[in-house]
C-alpha cells in the first residue's frame, strides 16, 4: 500500500505535464475530461489508501516509503520519502477531495477561457505540490512542495496577466511569501547543522538534545516561514491582493489548502514546538492580532472576494492561536471545517460574480435571494458555518474547541477570539444582507450548471455535517476527530463545562442580529461608509502604505542611485577596452590583398629573426 503514495502525487502531476506539453492545443472538452479523470483517480486513491491505513491496527503509527537517496554529504543526508500518518491522512483527504470538488467547479467556471489548458496545468501542478508537501517525510522534500505551491500561487494570481494590477498582485504575493521562504530555509539550515538530519521523525527525536537557543532560533525561523504562507500579521498584505486570480484559485489555494500549509507544518512539528515556549507564545500573539485586525478590515470591505480574503486571514489566525495554545486538535479541526465552508463561500461568490458579469462590489448587488435561491442557500450555509452559528454548523464546533483551549492558556486570548467571532458574524452577515436582500441593482444572466452546483452542494453538506465529527461532552460526547488524531497529537484538553459553551453560542447570534439591524433592507440602497478611519481599515490598517514608505520606496531610491555605481563602471571599462581592441584589429582587415602580403612578409621576417 505504501507504493501507492507516489502514485497519488503522480496523477495530478502527469495531467499537468500533459497539459504543459500540449501547450494549449487541447480544446476545453478534452482538457476538462483529463483533469476530471486525473483528479478523480487521485481522490479515489487517497480515499482507498486512507481507509486501508485507518483500518489497520492503531499502533501502526505510519506507513513510509523511501523513493531514493537525494543528498548524502559528510554528516548530513536527506532521503526522498513519503510518510502517511494520521495527521497527513487528514490533510491528504482535504487536499485531494476538496481539491477534486474545486477542480470540477473550475472546469465549468473556466470553460470559456481561451487559456484553459494553462490554467489547469498550473492547478494540477499545485495539487501535486501540495500533496508532496503533505506527504513529505523529510523537511527538504517538504520544502520542494512548499516552493511548488508558492510558484503555482504566483502563476495563478497573475493568470490574467494582461491586466497590470493582476501581474502586480502576483509579484507582491511572490515577494512577500519569499520573505517567509527565506526564513524557512534559514530554519532548515539551523536544524541541518545542529541535528544533522531534516527527517521529521528523527528531528523530533533529536530535538530535546539540541542546544536550547538553536532549537528556539530554528523554530522561530520555521514559524516565520509558516506565517508568510498563511498570511499572518505582519506578512499578511499579499492575501487580499491575491484575489486578482480566478475565483476557483482563491477557493483552492487562498482558502482551503496552501494557506493552511503553515498550520500543518507547525502541527507536524508540535513536539519540537512544545520545547520552545517562547515560539508558541509568539505564535499565539500573532494569531490573536491577526484575528482582530483581519476581522476589522473585513467589516468595511466592499468587494465580496476581499471580504472572504480577510475572513480567511482571520480564521487562519484562529488556527495560529490554537497552535500557540497547544490546541493541536482544535487547529487541525478548524483547518478541515474551514476548508469546507471557505471553499463553499468562494465557490458561491464565484457563481454570483459570473452571473452578474464580473461584478464584485457588494453594494451593486442586491435582492439575489429570489433570483438565485440555490446559490443563496449555499452562501447562507457557508456564512453560518463561518460565523459559527451554534449546533447546526461545522464552524461552531471547531471554533468552540479553540476557544476552550485558549481559555485554558489565557482568558485574554479567549476574550479576543470571542470578539473576533462576534466581528466575524457581523461582517459575513453584512455581506449576506446586502447581497441577497433589498432591491435588484444589477441584472443577472444564465443559469448555474450542474458541474458548479454539485460540488457546492457536497461542500454545503460537509459545512453542516462536518462538525459532528467532534462534539463537546456538554452537548453530546462525540470524539471521532480527536480519537483519529490522538496517536499523533496526544489527548485533548479537559473541557470547562457549559458556561463557556453557552457564551460562545450566544455571541454569534447577537452578531447576526446586530447585522440585521444595521444592514436590513431599507428604503434607499445601502452605501459604503466613509471617513478616514474606515478608509484606513479598508486599506488593511495602512500596512501597505507603511511598507511602501519604509521598504519599497527606499529600496527603489537606493537602486536608482546604485544604477551607475563604481563596480559597474569598472566592468564598463573592460567592455570598452575589448571594443576598441576589436576596432583596431578590424582596421587591418581592409580587403587589400597586397597589404596582407606585406604583413605576412613582415611578420615572417620578425619570426625568423626571433627564431635565429
Amino acid at each position: 500500500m505504501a507504493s501507492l503514495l507516489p502514485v497519488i502525487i503522480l496523477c495530478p502531476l502527469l495531467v499537468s505535464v500533459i497539459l504543459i506539453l500540449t501547450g494549449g492545443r487541447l480544446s476545453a472538452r478534452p482538457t476538462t475530461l483529463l483533469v476530471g479523470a486525473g483528479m478523480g483517480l487521485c481522490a479515489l486513491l487517497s480515499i482507498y489508501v486512507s481507509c486501508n491505513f485507518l483500518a489497520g491496527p492503531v499502533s501502526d503509527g505510519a506507513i513510509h516509503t523511501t523513493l531514493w537517496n537525494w543528498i548524502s554529504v559528510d554528516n548530513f543526508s536527506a532521503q526522498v520519502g513519503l510518510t502517511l500518518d494520521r495527521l497527513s491522512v487528514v490533510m491528504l483527504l482535504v487536499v485531494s477531495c476538496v481539491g477534486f470538488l474545486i477542480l470540477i467547479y473550475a472546469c465549468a467556471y473556466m470553460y470559456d477561457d481561451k487559456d484553459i489548458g494553462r490554467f489547469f496545468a498550473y492547478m494540477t501542478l499545485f495539487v501535486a505540490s501540495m500533496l508532496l508537501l503533505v506527504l513529505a517525510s523529510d523537511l527538504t522534500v517538504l520544502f520542494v512542495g512548499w516552493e511548488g505551491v508558492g510558484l503555482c500561487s504566483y502563476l495563478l494570481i497573475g493568470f490574467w496577466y494582461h491586466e497590470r494590477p493582476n501581474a502586480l498582485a502576483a509579484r507582491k504575493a511572490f515577494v512577500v511569501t519569499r520573505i517567509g521562504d527565506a526564513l524557512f530555509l534559514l530554519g532548515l539550515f539551523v536544524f541541518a547543522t545542529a541535528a544533522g538530519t531534516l527527517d521529521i521523525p528523527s528531528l523530533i527525536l533529536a530535538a530535546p538534545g539540541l542546544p536550547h537557543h538553536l532549537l528556539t532560533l530554528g523554530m522561530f525561523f520555521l514559524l516565520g516561514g509558516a506565517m508568510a504562507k498563511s498570511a499572518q500579521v505582519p506578512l499578511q498584505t499579499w492575501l487580499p491582493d491575491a484575489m486578482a486570480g480566478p475565483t476557483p484559485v482563491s477557493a483552492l489555494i487562498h482558502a482551503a489548502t496552501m494557506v493552511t500549509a503553515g498550520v500543518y507544518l507547525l502541527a507536524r512539528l508540535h513536539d519540537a514546538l512544545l520545547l520552545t515556549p517562547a515560539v508558541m507564545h509568539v505564535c499565539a500573539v500573532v494569531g490573536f492580532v491577526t484575528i482582530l485586525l483581519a476581522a476589522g478590515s473585513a467589516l468595511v470591505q466592499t468587494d465580496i472576494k476581499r471580504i472572504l480574503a480577510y475572513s480567511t486571514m482571520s480564521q487562519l489566525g484562529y488556527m495560529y492561536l490554537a497552535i500557540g495554545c497547544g490546541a493541536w486538535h482544535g487547529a487541525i479541526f478548524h483547518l478541515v471545517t474551514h476548508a469546507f465552508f471557505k471553499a463553499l463561500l468562494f465557490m458561491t461568490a464565484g457563481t454570483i460574480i459570473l452571473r452578474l458579469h464580473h461584478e464584485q462590489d457588494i453594494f451593486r448587488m442586491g435582492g439575489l435571494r429570489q433570483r438565485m435561491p440555490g446559490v443563496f442557500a449555499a452562501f447562507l450555509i457557508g456564512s453560518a458555518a463561518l460565523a459559527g452559528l451554534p449546533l447546526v454548523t461545522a464552524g461552531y464546533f471547531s471554533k468552540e474547541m479553540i476557544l476552550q483551549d485558549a481559555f485554558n492558556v489565557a482568558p485574554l486570548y479567549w476574550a479576543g477570539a470571542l470578539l473576533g467571532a462576534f466581528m466575524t458574524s457581523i461582517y459575513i452577515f453584512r455581506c449576506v444582507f446586502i447581497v441577497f436582500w433589498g432591491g435588484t441593482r444589477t441584472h443577472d444572466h444564465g443559469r448555474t450548471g450542474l458541474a458548479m452546483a454539485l460540488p457546492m452542494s457536497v461542500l454545503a453538506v460537509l459545512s453542516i455535517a462536518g462538525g459532528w465529527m467532534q462534539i463537546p461532552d456538554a452537548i453530546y460526547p462525540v470524539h471521532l476527530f480527536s480519537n483519529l488524531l490522538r496517536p499523533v497529537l496526544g489527548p485533548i484538553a479537559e473541557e470547562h463545562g457549559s458556561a463557556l459553551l453557552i457564551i460562545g453560542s450566544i455571541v454569534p447570534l447577537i452578531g447576526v442580529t446586530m447585522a440585521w439591524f444595521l444592514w436590513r433592507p431599507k428604503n434607499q440602497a445601502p452605501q459604503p461608509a466613509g471617513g478616514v478611519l474606515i478608509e484606513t481599515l479598508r486599506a488593511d490598517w495602512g500596512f501597505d502604505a507603511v511598507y511602501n514608505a519604509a521598504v519599497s520606496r527606499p529600496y527603489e531610491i537606493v537602486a536608482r542611485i546604485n544604477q551607475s555605481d563604481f563596480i559597474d563602471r569598472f566592468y564598463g571599462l573592460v567592455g570598452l577596452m575589448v571594443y576598441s581592441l576589436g576596432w583596431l584589429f578590424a582596421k587591418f582587415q581592409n580587403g587589400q590583398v597586397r597589404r596582407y602580403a606585406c604583413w605576412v612578409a613582415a611578420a615572417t621576417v620578425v619570426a625568423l629573426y626571433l627564431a635565429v
Partner: protein
Amino acid sequence: MNASDPNLGLIIAAFLFSIGLFGVMVRRNLLFMLLSTEVMLNAVALAFISAGNKWHQADGQIMFIMIIAYAAAEASVGLAIVLRLHAAGHATLDADSCNRLKG
C-alpha cells in the same frame, strides 16, 4: 665559387624570392601578382633542390615535385578567380578594387 657550389643555388633562390615578394607587394595588376607568386614558388623549389644537393638528401627533390603540383593548383585557382571577376563584369584587374570582403 663554382657552378656546383650549393650555396650559390640558395643565394639565387633568396634573390628570386625577394623579387617575387616585391612584385606581390608593389604590383596592382592581378595577373602580375600571380606571376610574382609563381616566381616565389619557384624560388622556394630551387631552395629545396639546392639544400638537398648540399646535404645529399633526396627529400629536396620530392619537395620540388610537390611544389610544382602546388604551383599548378595555385595558378588554376588564381586564373579562375581572374576569369570570374571578368565574367562578373569587373572592368579592371586592379587588386585594390576587389576589396569588398574588408572588415
